């Protein structure tokens, strides 16, 4: 009996989810942070949903843990440090903030001169990299929050994404049409890539030093060390974000046609596509163990998807067919909180699965 994907919708944000990030695997599991825009900036009098509210969730279930309150504008970027003890957010209120991810308390507010778009911790959580509309990369020493950050200039348009790479010895940054590699120690540019189309996202995979860049309908893979191209795929629609599975077997991507696409990384074959979101997908990321991926959309929701459909993991519970009956297998276990009708609703709510190959789901 073939199983179809049941995406799990995480409620809470009512505004578009523009960024999401997973922590590493900690003794308490792994965690997920999501950032959303506040109310439309053209409605300054709207209270409540006026400001972006980054949220922390348990990574494997999507359960809400807490909301970081304090920003006074849309939150464009959010990240967690490796052990999920700290969070950092980048906002339209011209600040980046560092938070205690256990208590939810604000630890630091770092003033900038324009909208901040991206934040990233080093592996040891000692430094925070920020970038935004003022076209400067800033490096803050989190042990000396009063000290002035080191600044790297060179970008000619607003910085959309900035990431530490090569064990924090280098920095990768993307603006509208370029991706640049900088040396941390000398603060100078090492190499750059130019694009004809706007770069929509960038992901760095430390194991294998791979950089995933999306622009237009392309999903491109480059060496993070040399920036040399490795391969690229074309999707059916404009892609806003893509993520490579930790074992580099698949990649997932989502964009303007509201669908999530899953590809075989080695062959480039499209394996699955899922409808589910009611708006463009802004961000998509695999969990650190590769068992699920999360997508954030303009529709204000965060959804979790299984990498191997039908596997027991997190809130997904595998069902074994009854041995003696030749009939359609039905779940034997009574789910106290969800009736079968509700289960059907959860699954079919908005996810029509379109298999591009055989019904046996390749995973």
């Amino acid at each position: 009996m073939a199983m179809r994907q049941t995406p799990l919708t995480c409620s809470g944000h009512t505004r578009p989810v523009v960024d999401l990030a997973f922590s590493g695997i900690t003794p308490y599991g792994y965690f997920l942070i999501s950032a959303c825009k506040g109310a439309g900036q053209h409605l300054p009098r709207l209270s409540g949903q006026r400001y972006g509210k980054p949220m922390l969730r348990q990574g494997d279930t999507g359960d809400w843990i807490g909301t970081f309150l304090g920003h006074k504008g849309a939150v464009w970027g959010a990240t967690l440090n490796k052990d999920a003890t700290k969070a950092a957010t980048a906002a339209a209120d011209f600040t980046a903030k560092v938070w205690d991810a256990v208590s939810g308390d604000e630890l630091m507010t770092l003033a900038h001169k324009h909208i901040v778009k991206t934040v990233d911790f080093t592996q040891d959580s000692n430094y925070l990299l920020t970038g935004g509309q003022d076209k400067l990369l800033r490096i803050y020493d989190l042990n000396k929050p009063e000290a002035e950050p080191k600044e790297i200039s060179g970008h000619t348009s607003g910085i959309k994404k900035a990431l530490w790479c090569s064990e924090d010895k280098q920095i990768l940054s993307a603006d509208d049409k370029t991706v640049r590699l900088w040396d941390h120690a000398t603060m100078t540019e090492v190499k750059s890539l130019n694009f004809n189309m706007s770069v929509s996202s960038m992901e760095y995979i430390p194991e294998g030093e791979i950089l995933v860049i999306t622009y237009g309908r392309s999903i491109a893979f480059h060496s993070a060390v040399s920036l040399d191209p490795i391969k690229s795929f074309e999707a059916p629609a404009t892609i806003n974000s893509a993520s490579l599975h930790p074992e580099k077997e698949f990649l997932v991507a989502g964009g303007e046609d509201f669908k999530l696409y899953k590809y075989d990384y080695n062959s480039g074959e499209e394996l699955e596509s899922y409808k589910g979101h009611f708006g463009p997908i802004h961000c998509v990321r695999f969990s650190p163990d590769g068992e699920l991926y999360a997508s954030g959309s303009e529709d204000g929701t965060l959804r979790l998807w299984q990498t191997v459909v039908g596997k027991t993991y997190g809130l997904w519970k595998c069902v074994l067919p009854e041995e003696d009956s030749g009939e359609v297998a039905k779940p034997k276990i009574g789910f106290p909180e969800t009736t079968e009708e509700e289960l059907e609703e959860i699954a079919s709510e908005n996810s029509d699965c379109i298999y591009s190959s055989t019904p046996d789901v390749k995973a």
Partner: protein
Amino acid sequence: MQTPVTIPVPVLRLPRGPDGFSRGFAPDGRRALLKPEVPQIQECPIVQESLESQEQRARAALRERYLRSLLAMVGRQVSFTLHEGVRVAAHFGATDLDVANFYVSQLQTPIGVQAEALLRCSDIISYTFKP
């Protein structure tokens, strides 16, 4: 071509959302012990009760940590110190419900390597491994 009949993957429940009245980060959540200790005044009897529940929480967190340490050991090389100064090394497999026995493989003993073995926990003084 007929679309195959599929059933949706069952779920235990939906992810929990915000409670709607607080910012969360529950003080009795999983990671509670990672928060810095708030100093408490000792006089009031109501404080006594919360001390007990604090102790309970601490015990629960320590138990959880121990169970997670066992999980982290699976598949790893562990060295055990047994009675009378005997030291053995093995690959840790699993423990039983009461943590009375450890199932190990490739147990290196002074008299040879045992492919699979059960180590009685009451015989173990200490064990160490690198995660």
